[in-house]
């Protein structure tokens, strides 16, 4: 049943070092990239920053701050706004929420990943990048258990290895790639039509 395993959405998360990691990955994607990407990056809470703007400048794909109840359109990277959780809805929309922080983080990667696992199950590709805490590990496990594809940035290629390492501790069967290979890997899947 290859068709049942077609990926339809990518979720990505990271903290320390993740802005640079995204700045490495996203420029490899073409403007007609066929999947939507939802991302959570932890930033210091007091830093009001235009992450989408900062990432946009070298990338062909469209990068924007996620808005509540916005449709998850292909070829667009949606970035969680500071101080809001970002979730995927079964209806194909994004939602924002102000529930308490998880792992001291809002937005939290676990919140995004767990919502993706529940709403999209095997149709999700989850990618956990560099980071200094455990957020994302149990969310990535949820995606794995729901039959989705899971990828972890290799701890050796990470600015902070705690995040990828915790994910691999929970589930050693996640795929692992060094940072420079993640973009080309996505490009390859894009060209072959996302069949797993």
């Amino acid at each position, binding site marked *: 049943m290859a068709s049942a395993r077609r990926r339809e959405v990518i979720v990505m998360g990271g903290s320390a070092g993740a802005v640079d990691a995204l700045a490495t990955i996203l420029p490899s994607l073409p403007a007609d990239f066929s999947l939507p990407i939802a991302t959570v990056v932890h930033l210091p809470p007091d830093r009001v920053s235009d992450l989408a703007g900062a990432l946009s400048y070298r990338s062909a794909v469209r990068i924007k701050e996620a808005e509540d*109840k916005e449709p998850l359109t292909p070829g667009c990277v949606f970035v969680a706004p500071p101080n809001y*959780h970002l979730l995927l809805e079964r209806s194909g*929309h994004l939602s924002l929420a*102000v529930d308490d922080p998880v792992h001291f983080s809002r937005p939290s990667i676990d919140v995004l990943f767990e919502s993706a*696992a529940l*709403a999209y199950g095997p149709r999700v590709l989850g990618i956990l990048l560099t980071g200094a805490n455990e957020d994302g590990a*149990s969310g990535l496990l949820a995606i794995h258990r729901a039959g989705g594809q899971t990828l972890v940035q290799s701890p050796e290629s990470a600015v902070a290895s705690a995040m990828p390492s915790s994910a691999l501790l929970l589930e050693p069967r996640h795929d692992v790639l060094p940072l420079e290979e993640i973009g080309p890997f996505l490009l390859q899947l894009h060209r072959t039509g996302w069949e797993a």
Partner: protein
Amino acid sequence: MTDAQDPNGEDVELELHLLLESIYRKYHYDFRSYSEASLQRRVRAALVHFGCPTISRLQERVLHEPSIFTELLRYLTVQVSDMFRDPTYFRAIREKVVPYLRTYPSLKLWVAGCSTGEEAYSLAILLSEEGLLEKSLIYATDINPESLRRAEAGIYEVERFVRFSENYRLAGGRGSLSDYYTASYSSAVLDRCLKKHILFSDHSLATDSVFAEVEFVSCRNVLIYFERDLQDRAIGILKDSLSRKGFLGLGMKETLRFSAHADSFHDFSPEDKLYQKL
């Protein structure tokens, strides 16, 4: 929160649907058009709290043990608030909306989804500093009775006032926030003269209709928990409650842009999420 059985998404959706339907039929609280993703999260937290392995088991308990429902409401609704949350919003009310409010002989304001009261008290302080409180009545409504009780008491943990005070200052506060509360050991109680002008009561944007005619309504971080259709219903109620040229304030990540009622409002100060009814 991992689940040993890991039921698939469709089963969980079905169970959630049945739970919400039961709650609606038995308790008349309507969560059926709330955003599913975050509701699912909170229901999962409730399962852990109540020691229920499945949503269906929780449903059975909710139906047969009404006392559980009050406790469950704590999970179904999100009680996260602060005084002067998003200080720029309150600064904008002070600088841009107050000049209009001054022109009315008396004022009615409405805080819809007031949670434990922080937003309503913030507004009362702002009005008091602008010399408008004496002619104002603030309605503050929510669906969570426990939160409404706490809102009415106006007692908050003293540690929270560090952030509240910083927010107050950034919001353009004219004095010191400590002018408005009395602290004892671990808690602080807000002044009676603020409370006198606030009427807390039960009202649901999902099931009730127009609340009262008001000149200003603030509904923040409530609509993001609703699906589009319910957002439209709720905004319709807010709109119908506003007098002509009345103001609507939303949360920093909420907007009228996609709403069916967008045409009934003027973009008064969209960066501050302030709209004016035409």
